[in-house]
């Protein structure tokens, strides 16, 4: 047995996933050359916001097995941190965005500690309650947050294209960061906790530390996404934290492929763009996505990415078997 054989398997699979992710992002980088329409460019920017939230939730749910129902709440928290800092203290985005990352991360850390011993439906319900509590606090603290009226947030750039490439650069950084994190032993620990927490502990994996890390990092990325979205939209409201937003994020990850790198970000674009088309038909988007989630989680557990990967493997195996037959 040679040492290079170790390089196959998981590492080769992850490299492919990274390359496909980079391919998706390269395509997104070229999109403005084809699509000149400002409205659609805005749709793509919002898709990138969702892609970051999907990637962050995927780290927690797909790689660590912690089915949190609070990803949209952390996006909302991030948006409000930078929004409130600029509204009350005139803080520039250079201060507001890092503050959003830190505050969301800290709240994620605390939530992670609270739900440490909870699993499955108990974890889901507790994180859901947390998300609703935060949304209601923001919505009812009218003197501070202006409640449901929402908060105006100053913009950063003059041109939409500048937001476009700023979002893309951050999404690329998030995706690369996740890849390099998951390649280290941390990736092994998180997936071990997902597969069997009891077995992971018996092998010496520090369960408390890694679960908390996953919650903190996922929340920090979501907060960053929310802060960037707030500055782009120049407006944040409690609607960012609605459970239906979380539903969209979950559908993106499940349709794209839970626990895969390219799946969630690819599907974030597909789902959000599809929801723009479906908007004309009234409130049917969520029904369509809910059905897709049910179909995918029942029949295609690895999502679109899994389907693509298997089709590719079959195509590659066919010439080989043909040769063997000769």
């Amino acid at each position, binding site marked *: 047995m040679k*040492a290079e054989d170790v390089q196959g398997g998981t590492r080769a699979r992850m490299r492919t996933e990274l390359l496909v992710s980079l391919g998706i992002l390269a395509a997104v980088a070229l999109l403005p050359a084809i699509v000149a329409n400002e409205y659609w460019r805005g749709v793509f920017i919002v898709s990138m916001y969702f892609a970051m939230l999907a990637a962050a939730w995927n780290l927690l749910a797909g790689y660590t097995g912690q089915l949190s129902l609070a990803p949209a709440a952390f996006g909302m928290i991030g948006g409000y941190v930078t929004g409130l800092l600029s509204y009350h203290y005139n803080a520039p985005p250079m201060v507001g965005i890092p503050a959003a990352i830190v505050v969301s991360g800290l709240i994620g850390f605390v939530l992670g500690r609270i739900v440490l011993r909870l699993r499955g439906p108990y974890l889901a319900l507790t994180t859901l309650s947390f998300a609703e509590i935060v949304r209601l606090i923001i919505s009812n603290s009218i003197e501070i947050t202006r409640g449901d009226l929402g908060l105006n947030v100053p913009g950063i750039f003059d041109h939409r294209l500048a937001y476009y490439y700023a979002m893309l650069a951050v999404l690329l950084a998030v995706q690369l960061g996740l890849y390099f994190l998951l390649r280290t*032993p941390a990736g092994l620990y998180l*997936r071990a906790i*997902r597969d*069997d927490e*009891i*077995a992971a502990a018996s092998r010496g994996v520090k369960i408390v530390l890694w679960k908390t890390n996953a919650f903190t990092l996922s929340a920090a990325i979501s907060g960053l996404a929310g802060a960037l979205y707030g500055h782009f939209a120049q407006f944040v409201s409690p609607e960012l934290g609605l459970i239906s937003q979380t539903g969209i994020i979950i559908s993106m990850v499940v349709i794209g492929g839970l*626990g895969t790198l390219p799946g969630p970000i690819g599907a974030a674009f597909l789902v959000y763009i599809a929801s723009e088309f479906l908007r004309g038909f009234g409130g049917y988007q969520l029904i369509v996505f809910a059905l897709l989630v049910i179909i995918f989680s029942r029949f295609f557990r690895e999502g679109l990415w899994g389907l693509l990967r298997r089709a590719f493997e079959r195509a590659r195996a066919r010439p080989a078997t043909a040769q063997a037959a000769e």
Partner: protein
Amino acid sequence: MPCLLIDRVSKSFGGIKALDRTSFTVDAGELVGLIGPNGSGKTTLINILSGYLAADAGRVDLDGRPTGGLRPETLAALGVQRTFQLTRSFPRMSTLDNLLVAGSALGLSQEAAETRALELLEDLALVRLMHLDAGHLSGGQLKLLEFGACFMVPPRIALLDEPFAAVHPTMKEIMAGFIRRRHAAGQTFILVSHDMPVIVELCPRTICMNAGAVIADENTRAVLTDPVVIEAYLGEAAA
């Protein structure tokens, strides 16, 4: 100083006394068989030794240090490694990654963990399955994999809970050979098993438990012919 000291450990579940002042010691380098009828407290004891359960009373010392209140992951890092009666693995991770988790968590560098994992896969005849997800392995192969994970870093003491149950004779032989070689090299074991021929073959000393208490603790032949042990297994008439 014994490697492992178990001193009057008790544990109840509701009104049932699973362990009732259980005491024994294991010296470094010993391979001790632990037998007893179903429900005699063997797995409860293993769960306490590995930190999954807290004892109601009594103490457990590892190399003279009390282990009460330590988490399973802390005990694993101190060198208490175990297998589970119902095999546990990471089904959506490759066979190789299953071993690398253990190696990395116990402080091996990535290269050292990979070298070690390849040696173990070779030893346990799992090399050609290394990139297959553990979820696709057979029950016996999973037992071998879990067993291997205990030895990524040679443990201070290996607690093997029924490693031979429902395992094909060929795989059983692979595992028994592995245990024999490690024991010869000085590895300490507690081996829980109902498979008397294997216990006789491997373990110089055997402890028999019944109803949460140690009823026999001496060389294996003597334990297996002890009327008290036979009575516990087969009922009074047979003795």
